[in-house]
């Protein structure tokens, strides 16, 4: 005798008028779906969805990760001298751990967890190596030309960097412009001819920004038709040449060209 329950199922199965294959597949899919809900009811992480589509406890877990960096204000509590020196220097905006690495362990036990002291030229050139896309005026050097082989610290204190003596040439800081000009038709013209510069600019550039030519008439003092300048200098009709636009909109003053 067949179990009446099976008979009932068999009977019900027969009532649904779908091909046998499809019925079995639907059955499997329903099982899968039930299985998925069953798994889901067990395995969804506990705090999931409390604040959004994520596990809220992840916030605490991340907050509990060990802290590696502490910030400059903690360092200067003990290293007051370095702090005082650096605060007034060019490096005031560069914090301690940028150069010395994460300091949390050092804070716990300064004597045993000594911090790294970067002595190689490579550290400084990460920021100061020449790159034409850095903003104008950011102090840059060409590591191959700027006192090669000597460690930077020989001449610059990392906590108070400044040129050891006032540079004689504008090119010490404006190297790119100086090099460009030196091979141009304007090579013979001194920078100060066009830029009125106070001496202090070479010690602390931002205290006094040099002036720049303002008008067409300035270039006209040499290039105007009637200018009182050496004969070999090419002349233009000052009133009409170049539609009256500023000369340096078409001619780069540090490397003037004729198109």
């Amino acid at each position, binding site marked *: 005798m067949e179990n009446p329950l099976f008979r009932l199922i068999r009977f019900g199965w027969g009532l649904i008028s779908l091909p*046998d*294959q499809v019925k079995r597949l639907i059955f499997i899919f329903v099982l899968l779906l039930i299985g998925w809900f069953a798994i*889901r009811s067990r*395995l969804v*992480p506990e705090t*999931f969805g409390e604040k959004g589509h994520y596990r809220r406890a992840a916030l605490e877990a991340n907050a509990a990760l060990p802290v590696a960096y502490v910030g400059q204000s903690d360092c200067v509590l003990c290293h007051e001298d370095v702090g005082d020196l650096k605060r007034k220097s060019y490096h005031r905006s560069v914090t301690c751990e940028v150069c010395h690495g*994460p300091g949390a362990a050092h804070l716990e036990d300064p004597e045993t967890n000594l911090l790294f002291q970067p002595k190689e030229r490579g550290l400084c050139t*990460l920021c100061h*190596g020449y*790159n034409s896309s850095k903003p104008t005026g950011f102090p840059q050097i060409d590591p191959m030309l700027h006192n090669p082989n000597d460690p930077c610290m020989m001449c610059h204190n990392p906590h108070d960097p400044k040129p050891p003596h006032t540079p004689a040439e504008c090119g010490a800081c404006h190297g790119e412009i100086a090099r460009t000009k030196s091979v141009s038709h304007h090579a013979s013209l001194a920078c100060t001819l066009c830029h009125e510069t106070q001496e202090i600019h070479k010690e602390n550039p931002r205290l006094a920004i040099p002036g720049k030519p303002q008008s067409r008439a300035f270039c006209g003092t040499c290039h105007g038709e009637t200018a009182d300048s050496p004969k070999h200098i090419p002349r233009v009709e000052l009133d009409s040449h170049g539609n009256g636009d500023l000369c340096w909109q078409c001619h780069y003053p540090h490397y003037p060209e004729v198109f």
Partner: protein
Amino acid sequence: MEHLFEQLQQNFSQIVGYIYPNEIELHWGILIVVYPYITGLVAGAFILASLERVFDVKEVLPTYRLALLTALAFLIVAPLPLLAHLGHPERSFEIMITPHLESAMAMFGFVYLWYLLVVLILEIWFEYRGDMVLWSRSGKGLKKYFYYLLTLGSLDTSEKALWFDQKAVKFITIIGIPSAFILHGYVGFLFGSIKANPWWSSVLMPIVFLFSAIVSGISLMILVYGITALFRSKQIDMVCIDKLASFLFYTLIIDVSLEVLDFIHRVYESVESIHIMEQMISQKLFISLVVVQLLIGTLLPLTFLAFTKLLRFPDELKRLIYFVTAILVQIGIFSTRWNVVIGGQLFSKSLRGLTHYKMELLGIEGLLISIGLLIMPLVILAILIKILPPWQDRTAAVS
């Protein structure tokens, strides 16, 4: 700390121009290259299979079942690179049980599941059901029960039932074609919709992805079909492989035209990013884009295929040419994925500099894992072929 400085210095020496600090490390590495590559193979193999069923291209019948199994083998592996990339593979199952309904990234889960469960597995099941019943009847011991389980107990082999199976296969294939388009079009969409990235952001992206997927799928089937024939010491069906090669030729032409269109479009538009793209192509991507993708992976195969069409070669030579072409196409498509994924991260969002990708060797996002993930589908395919022999040599072919 010191080694970090050294690493930073080394990276710096590879950087050109100005980049933002967070761009020095690429976040999507080789695993994310492998992912679209594999999904592309799935979609391509499936579309090839559908040629036989829906468009009634009888010549490619010998590859029909093989293509289905290949698609399945690669589909099983497709999400693994993503899960490995999540960083916590042991937790990755959580994304399956807490699906996100709005995230474009999470959409892959749904597309994948649909494709796996509703398209591929169902189609394979209907296609093989009749055979499985036979194997269950003739098998002994465990084998008998194994196939019985696979049939889900649906043992009816009457004409009507088998007829229904074939109808179901056809119906699923018809649903399957748009699904395959969605599967890989989706991957292209993910990249194409990132509007902040000028290398990716393009409406053509999903379509370009799709056609390169079809190209890669067909060339993969040439390889798989050739190699399995070799192992079974069977003669390769020249009619079939000629047809495959023709399809490869035509789709490759469409694929190239689309890419060229995309290229012309970009050059003509010349938005501000064009200069950095130009630099990137001539410096960082020269080998992988110009040499590998364009010359080795596209123009060379096109030339080879054109020759087989124009000239009369002996069959042996033709097979060899097809084979080499298929391998070149695979290399080309892999570098296509590489150029999209890695290329899109090599230039700075400042559009003023280029960064550098340094591949790991070990580690969960490294080269070794990626090679493993590329071999895995082949192993799975070998097992699938053992379980569900796909051979339908032409003489024995049924309707």
